């Protein structure tokens, strides 16, 4: 027997959970003017998150998927991407979506069950979230292929969950991305759960990063609760993509501190103790500690930020709650570019009937 191929999966982290620097920081992270916006974005997202849950609990919004504890992944991605890159998001990466111009009120409207929410006012190109887990991994291949055809030095980022990596869609996508060396970065948020299914029930692979080996390109694991590591890894992968050196799979290790959604009760399948243990590693406090130690952040800044975030979220909630309802006939307005005459009478019927209240 001889050895015909060998592989290594690297791991990286810059700021550990105590806020201590464990390896030399990348250049951007030496500039607190860059770090502070990352911190702010994470806090803002978390503020949004609790408000959204409150709206759901008080019957003013439908099922909501919180991303409590996973803030660094979304924010790190958002910060690393250029405006004209394309994001193909999963549903927990609000941090990335907000950074790229999606409005909080749009996300709220979405979870209230209103299609108009995906017609983002300030983000015209990114795909909306994909509810059928993993399917968008393939959509991202098309997006990246289009970018490659157009040769514009742009790249795509696709975010997905650990559970999603069990879908065939995902593997068909990464395999093809490898063949065509697409400008495409997959970021897997490994939050250890797919609803109640734990990582060990999901796959026997020691890491998700190594799944890239099946597709012939490189995979790496990072501390997904370290926003510096996320931003750095995504940035490097995007540069590689732009150079024409193909796709990268980044496994961001994080943890879902919330229930799966507001329709879920995680206490059925995990203990309070396990949950508490993971709070230690959450992404926000470590960065605060670090910034505080750098003396670029303090109680004043923190208090001001909390107020700002609360005010911003409240404005967005108000906008959301004041959104006028859609006429039911709207379900035909964007079914086709021009509604075929065969369906005109159905739209007409709905127009006449008006809204049915639940």
């Amino acid at each position, binding site marked *: 027997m001889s050895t015909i191929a060998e592989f290594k999966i690297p791991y990286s982290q810059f700021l550990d959970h105590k806020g201590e620097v464990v390896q030399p920081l990348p250049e951007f992270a030496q500039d607190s003017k860059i770090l502070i916006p990352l911190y702010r974005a994470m806090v803002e997202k978390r503020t949004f998150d609790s408000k959204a849950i409150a709206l759901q609990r008080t019957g003013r919004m*439908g*099922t909501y998927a919180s991303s409590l504890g996973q803030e660094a992944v979304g924010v790190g991605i958002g910060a690393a991407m250029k405006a004209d890159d394309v994001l193909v998001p999963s549903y927990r990466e609000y941090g990335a979506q907000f950074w790229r111009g999606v409005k909080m009120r749009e996300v709220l409207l979405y*979870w*209230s*069950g*209103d*299609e108009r929410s995906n017609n983002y006012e300030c983000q015209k190109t990114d795909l909306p979230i994909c*509810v*059928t*887990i*993993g399917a968008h991994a393939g959509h991202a291949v098309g997006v990246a292929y289009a970018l490659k055809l157009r040769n514009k030095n742009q790249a795509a980022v696709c975010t997905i969950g650990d*559970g*999603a990596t*069990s*879908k*065939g869609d995902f593997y068909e996508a990464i395999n093809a991305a490898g063949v065509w060396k697409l400008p495409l970065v997959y970021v897997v948020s490994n939050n250890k759960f*797919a*609803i*109640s*299914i734990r990582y060990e*029930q*999901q*796959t026997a692979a020691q890491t998700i990063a190594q799944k890239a080996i099946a597709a012939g390109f490189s995979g790496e694991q990072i501390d997904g609760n370290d926003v510096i590591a996320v931003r750095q890894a995504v940035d490097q992968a995007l540069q590689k993509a732009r150079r024409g050196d193909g796709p990268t799979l980044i496994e961001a290790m994080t943890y879902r501190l919330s229930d799966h959604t507001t*329709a*879920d009760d995680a206490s*059925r*399948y995990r203990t309070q103790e396990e949950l508490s243990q993971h709070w230690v590693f959450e992404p926000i406090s470590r960065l605060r500690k670090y910034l505080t130690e750098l003396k670029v952040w303090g109680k004043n800044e923190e208090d001001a930020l909390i107020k700002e975030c609360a005010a911003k979220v409240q404005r967005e909630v108000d906008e959301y709650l004041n959104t006028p*309802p*859609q006429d*039911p006939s*709207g*379900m*035909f307005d964007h*079914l086709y570019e021009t509604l075929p005459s*065969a*369906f005109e009478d*159905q739209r007409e019927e*709905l127009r006449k*009937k008006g*809204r*049915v*209240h*639940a």
Partner: protein
Amino acid sequence: MPEINLVEAVNQALAYEMEHDPSVMALGEDIGVNGGVFRATLGLRERFGQDRVLDTPLSEVLIGAMSIGLSTMKIRPVAEIQFSGFLYSNLDNIINHASRMRNRTQGRLSCPMVIRSPSGGGIHAPEHHSESPEAMFAHVPGIRVVIPSSPLRAYGLLLAAIRDPDPVIFLEPTRLYRLFKQEVPDNGKAELLDVCLTIREGTDVTLVSWGAMMNEVQIAAETLSTEGIEAEVIDVATIKPLDMETILKSVAKTGRCVIVHEAPRCAGFGAEIAANLAEHGLLTLFAPVCRVTGYDAVMPLAKLEKSYIPSVEKIIKAVRKTVQFA
């Protein structure tokens, strides 16, 4: 006897059959420790062990595919697809393999397997959680498509589906999961497949439906009765194979037929029933066959789903028009 709701009836049937037939197993996403997102498999893992109540990875294609392999090996899998919108990735295996293994091997191997999935809207769920895909399955030769409309029927039909020697797609109306309760004796008695059930006798019009819409249809029938219109109400229950005889007999009596389903109209299963009437019942028809259906639009998100699903009023209006037709 305590009354139970539809999802509890499903659970009761599963437990009964797993208790009495060691070759039956359940598989799907989150069906183990979590008891299923709707709790249809609650307690089964504790009772029958994690090997027979199998939490799968997030892999719908695998769930369908491995059910095929299991059933060729004489294990009887009851697979859960978490929501109907995720069933479509399974069509490949259902159409190309589950439905054909018996014919392909001339009986040497077969696929007695059940795929359970919630179906239909009305619970304010996210996108892809409210689909009504029965017509697509009804087009597939070699399988059965069964849809219960009450806790009692869910229990009896699910037992029948599990015991059936051929593949069964078992669509559970999400909207009915917790809508009402019935006494459901846990006696292991299966209901007959392949037959329509006449739920209410009537003389003026035949009202045909299945699944969750049976609820609106029955309310409509009672209301219509107060205005002197007596509807005969038929619950199709087994969509495929279709017991057209029962429907034709009823229409021969009433001369009028209104078919109600939640799925989009175009190429929905109502078309098959209406087409049979146009072919085999034409001379008995006193009025156009009316289909009251969901729109030929994408099932909307929560805010508009009530506008999409046929309402009691819409059914009543259609029946009135049909009865008044002369």
